């Protein structure tokens, strides 16, 4: 696996430019993922890779296409110092793992080998030997994740038909 590291304010226009939003097919989205911040990303990313960002990751648009395109690339999770609100909701809703940990985001370097235990919220940088604890999700959010996503959890409760 490999780590892709970016800075603060990685916005939804660089994650998936609007000119590509009229084809929501996951493969199409994956082929343009991160293209305006890193032209080589889509052609070099492999399943199991991890993205590390700074503050306010995913800021800007509400487009669910943003976490969808990252997920469609097979990225295992995004670790960031903080997440923009709508991106955070969207990632949870589509079952894509995100982990908020300012220290990990600052210290992990591109090229490090990193493993994560999403359930426990633990990040291990095997290259540096450091371990980090990500901010836990509220129980309610764990409920959404455990049920396989927002719509499934609403169906399970009988609220959505």
């Amino acid at each position, binding site marked *: 696996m490999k780590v892709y590291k970016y800075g603060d*304010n990685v916005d939804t226009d660089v994650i998936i430019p609007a000119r590509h*939003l*009229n084809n929501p097919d996951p493969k199409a989205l994956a082929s343009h993922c991160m293209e305006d911040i890193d032209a080589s990303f889509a052609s070099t990313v492999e399943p199991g890779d991890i993205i590390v960002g700074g*503050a306010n990751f995913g800021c*800007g648009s*509400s*487009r669910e296409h943003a976490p969808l395109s990252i997920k469609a690339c097979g990225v295992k999770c995004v670790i960031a110092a903080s997440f923009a609100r709508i991106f955070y909701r*969207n990632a949870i*809703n589509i079952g894509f793992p995100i982990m908020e940990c300012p220290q990990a985001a600052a210290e992990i370097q591109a090229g490090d080998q990193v493993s994560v235990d999403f359930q426990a919220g633990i990040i291990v940088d095997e290259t540096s030997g450091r371990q980090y604890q990500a901010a836990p999700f*509220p129980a309610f959010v764990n409920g959404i994740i455990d049920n396989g996503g927002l719509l499934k959890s609403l169906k399970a409760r009988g609220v959505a038909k």
Partner: protein
Amino acid sequence: MGMTMTQKILAKHAGLDRVEAGQLIEGRLDLVLGNDITAPVAITEFDKAGLTEIFDKDKIAIILDHSTPCKDIQSARLCSQARDFAKRFSITNFYDVGQMGVEHALIPEKGLAAPGEVIIGADSHTCTYGALGAFSTGVGSTDMAAGMATGLSWFKVPSAIKVTLKGELQPYVSGKDVMLHLIGTIGVDGALYKSLEFGGEGVAQLTMDDRFTIANMAIEAGAKNGIFPVDDKTRAYLDGRVTRAWEAVEPDADAVYDREVVIDLSALKPTVALPHLPSNTRTVDEVAGTPIQQVVIGSCTNGRLDDLRRAAEILKGRKVAPGVRCIVFPATQQIMLDAMAEGLINIFIEAGAAVSTPTCGPCLGGHMGVLSDGERAISTTNRNFVGRMGPVSSEIILASPAVAAASAVAGCVANPQSLMG
């Protein structure tokens, strides 16, 4: 401990006497909104989950505004999908080409937002309706599908930043300058997860269009929502548009805020945001003379009648500079008709500007004014991230309609105060 305007509205919609910041609640929705980019993803998820019922056909709005009139086959297929869903469920508020407008200008115009209501929309600028004293926030497509199915959504109750407005705006300074100034002050994540609660004596002299502009860009500071108190101007706007009962809220005197930002409107100068963040602000004088190739006047931020009047005042009897493409987008059909009646469209065309049917168009680099390599636009839209309106080497400067119009005449960033004397 008292509650903010936002907290009061959320408490009421969750059936609770009170809520506090950080609390997770499930709230009843008054409106669920989507467009031609976000509704199709919601519809696909809705169908994939095997859902067959919506909560209320009168409380869902689907507006085809981003890629319409359809710019290519893909966009046309997405619009078909939205159209079919609207027909399947007899969605009352479905707006197609010919009736549609830019969603955040159309919704208030059609009386679909009222004080005290809770509105979610699959578009980040849904925060616009906070101008009317509603709690209104952007969400993704799955949240839209869930909202359509259940009429409920989960929220984490936000803490708040108090924005106190004093004084009065000087000539050629408007709501856009207020908001760019605020975002420049607190940063693009300065209000992350929070509500921006506007108040103070300065509110009374802001027009409704100014307030829509300000609330529209709450997301650009990372806010969950922006919200204004309801006053006589709000009531005058709602009169004739909203017939259902509504209830305004006021913040408690002992409501708690994370911080207060005071803005003296009298001291504000025309303000722009340079590439590539809405917070990269300068006064217009600091960057006057910067060359531009395109001017965009319109959008959910500044495509309303007041915005067009401000631009027309400056373009009247003048010409768009050689080498500059100026494109004007009245945000709804009604605004187009009103602008025509006032002679504004003539002014734009005689000045050498192109005038378009309502569409989001170039705001997100979709169509109707995409930039080429190395070009720079000055635009009344709300975002100037890398690659937003063209290739990664293109640039966007955000500005008010007055600054954009003055810049169109000058062929470079210009202060309307200098042009108009």
